[in-house]
């Protein structure tokens, strides 16, 4: 899907023709393992994160492929039920905690937030490097639990199964998630302090690019939500190891209290996953329509609105769980309110294209796919928030389809869009545009073929986490879904090929290949170690294409001359 080169970045960069006086770019600013593993440069740490999350994305996808293979036949005869439980649990845990939550803030947030606000680096570079190591330690613990017998509690760890009935290594995985969560807190903290303290002179709050705003809102959620799941997981660990049965009904404990504490984090966590993706979407729409985002302030307020309202709605995961009907009604009203900011953003992105100058390069294909899939994902979310419908479709494939439309359809396509948008800036290389467009289309088609049938399966009553389904006529839809999964898999593998190829033989990227406006496009690609050679003073708004008309013309000319298609 994107470069997963085994060895470190620096041995692959081509023979760098050193400009005599200009400082070397950050990739060539030091060679050898030490310069990479002990770097405090936010750009190198972002590349290290990119490698880690790519490996975990591939592992998670591998488990997903096995799940889809299993569900081709109703009998569920590919793997035993225990194995299947481990498969969907590890697919969930790896994808949620090791890919979706860290990726965009830790890769693109780390790389571009400092550049976009005109800073030389993050507020605490050493903490940034430490977060990468802590993240990998947590990941190793989670992955170790696979080989030591796996985990079969589902990524939700519902008590009392996870605390007293599961014989798998829940505690190892729980400690792994705790540590990975700590890395997420470190990243969130770093971004928060940087955005507050390190903005260049002239970069006022409402001149910040929307990607920075999105990371700001995400950091709020990370800082307020992650600790609660950390303590909840510690409680489950304490119950398993020291018999401190805090959720054990035998001592008056309440399994539904676990669900409250778990979802208090896990719903805002889905906004941790989706808000940065919305930030990338705003960047892509502005860059490829060459126009200011329509209603910039409303998009900012809706990001902050989502961050705050996100904490008020977690009860919609528990409508049928024995939670009181009145509390369910309160959570349902608030869920309807939290859907409004997302609707506002969708309308604003659509309005941005009006009278814009739209070009259909690969990142824009992903952005347009984002729009379609976010409509479906968002509106089915509203359906699930409606009390009446959720009673029937809770814990069925309708829910699985909804959150995959939002997680894969929205977050991953924004990640792919962002990757293709910033790849020239991060690596100084251009990738071939034809295969990348093919892979974008493949991803879109494969995705819809995989997950749209699951909406139908869900309403017909197929429960989730079933390795075998007794109803014969569900098989057709399941086979369609599995077929879609293979197309999606190919669609995601293609970028790994051509992006890695571009690292060696891709054309040299000019400073502004897309003719976009933003501090990151005013510096060479790849940028130097300290990003800006002279102090930056910001005078324009975020996407002020009119003021930068000449710069765009020059960039377009440079691109023409580098005979890019």
């Amino acid at each position, binding site marked *: 899907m994107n470069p997963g080169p085994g060895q470190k970045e620096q041995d692959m960069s081509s023979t760098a023709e050193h400009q005599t006086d200009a400082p070397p770019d950050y990739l060539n600013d030091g060679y050898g393992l030490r310069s990479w593993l002990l770097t405090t440069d936010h750009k190198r740490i972002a590349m290290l994160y990119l490698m880690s999350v790519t490996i975990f994305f591939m592992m998670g996808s591998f488990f997903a492929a096995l799940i889809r293979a299993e569900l081709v036949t109703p009998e569920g005869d590919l793997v035993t039920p225990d194995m299947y439980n481990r498969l969907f649990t590890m697919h969930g845990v790896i994808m949620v905690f090791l890919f979706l939550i860290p990726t965009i803030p830790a890769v693109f947030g780390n790389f571009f937030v400092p550049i976009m606000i005109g800073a030389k680096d993050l507020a605490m570079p050493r903490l940034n490097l430490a977060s990468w190591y802590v993240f990998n330690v947590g990941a190793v613990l989670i992955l170790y639990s696979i080989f030591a017998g796996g985990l079969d509690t589902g990524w939700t760890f519902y008590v009392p199964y996870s605390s007293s009935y599961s014989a798998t290594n829940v505690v190892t995985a729980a400690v792994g998630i705790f540590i990975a969560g700590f890395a997420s*807190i470190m990243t969130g903290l770093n971004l928060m302090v940087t955005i507050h303290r390190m903005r260049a002179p002239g970069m006022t709050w409402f001149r910040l690019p929307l990607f920075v705003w999105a990371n700001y809102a995400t950091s709020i959620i990370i800082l307020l939500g*992650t*600790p609660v799941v950390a303590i909840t997981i510690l409680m489950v660990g304490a119950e398993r190891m020291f018999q*401190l049965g*805090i959720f054990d009904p035998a001592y008056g404990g309440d399994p539904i209290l676990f669900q409250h*504490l778990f979802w208090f984090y896990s719903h805002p966590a889905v906004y941790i996953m989706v808000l940065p993706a919305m930030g990338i979407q705003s960047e892509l729409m502005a860059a490829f329509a060459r126009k200011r985002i329509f209603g910039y302030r409303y998009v900012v307020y809706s990001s902050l609105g989502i961050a705050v309202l996100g904490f008020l709605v977690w009860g919609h995961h528990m409508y049928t769980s024995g939670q009181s009907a009145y509390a369910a009604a309160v959570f349902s009203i608030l869920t309807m309110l939290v859907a409004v900011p997302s609707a506002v953003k969708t309308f604003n992105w659509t309005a941005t294209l009006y009278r814009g100058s739209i070009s259909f390069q690969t990142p824009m294909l992903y952005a347009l796919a984002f729009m379609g899939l976010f409509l479906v994902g968002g509106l089915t979310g509203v359906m699930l928030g409606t009390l009446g419908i959720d009673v029937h479709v809770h814990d069925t494939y309708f829910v699985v389809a909804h959150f995959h439309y939002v997680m894969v359809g929205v977050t991953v396509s924004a990640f792919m869009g962002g990757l293709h948008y910033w790849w020239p800036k991060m690596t100084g290389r251009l990738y071939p545009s034809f295969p990348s467009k093919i892979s974008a289309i493949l991803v879109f088609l494969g995705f819809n073929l995989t997950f749209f049938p699951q909406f139908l399966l869900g309403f017909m009553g197929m429960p989730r986490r079933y390795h075998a389904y007794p109803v014969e006529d569900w098989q057709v839809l399941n086979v369609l879904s599995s077929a879609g999964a293979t197309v999606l898999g190919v669609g995601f593998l293609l970028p790994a090929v051509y992006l890695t190829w571009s690292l060696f033989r891709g054309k040299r990227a000019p400073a502004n290949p897309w003719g976009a406006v933003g501090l990151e496009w005013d510096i060479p690609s790849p940028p130097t170690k300290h990003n800006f050679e002279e102090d930056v003073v910001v005078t324009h708004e975020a996407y002020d294409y009119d003021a930068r008309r000449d710069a765009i013309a020059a960039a377009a000319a440079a691109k023409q001359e580098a005979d890019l298609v």
Partner: protein
Amino acid sequence: MSEAVQNSRLAHWYRSWEEQTESVTLAMWFFLVTEVMFFGGIFTAYLIYRAQNPEAFAAASHHLDIVMGGVNTAVLIGSSLTVVMSVWAAERGKQKALATWLFLTMLLGLTFLVIKYFEYSAKFEHNLVPGASFEFHDTRAGEHGYVDPSRARMFFHLYFFMTGLHALHMIIGLGIYGVLLFNTLKGKYSVRWHDPIPVAGLYWHFVDLVWIFLFPLLYLIGRH
């Protein structure tokens, strides 16, 4: 301390000393926000279960040793004072005073942990530690009626989890202050640059704050 060494403390990506101090302090305050939510989770569980079984919690709380709890509270408030004195000394560059206040803070922290150790061992003797050997008898004076031992055991689940977590934070605090003391003796801090002292102080005060809430909620219920 030579000027060069001092300047190396000003990280190159900050524009001034004040900006660096403000950023580091702000970062610690953000971290304390996560700590508030971290303890918030277990305090929520405590409040819910206490609301559901007030009698059982009152009976169980009666078993806690209020003298040790009270002394521990005084010890922690004392340690907060020594921390504040260490910040006061650091601001004025009084290296010797700084070292003594840091050492006193560690001493008080250690006293707290030692008292905690005695409390826990007392619980072991009265088999009040959740596990196979847990047995509970209502020792409150006067007629309070029957208390379900399993609900009283829930109090001890929360008691050991919360005070254990707090003690863990105290141990981390001792580690931090050990490093500070070591650096002070090596003369790393000066009037110009002593950021770690007040920042570590914030963390220590937070650990004291948690105990300020833990003490009444765990020790003082059911005493009347």
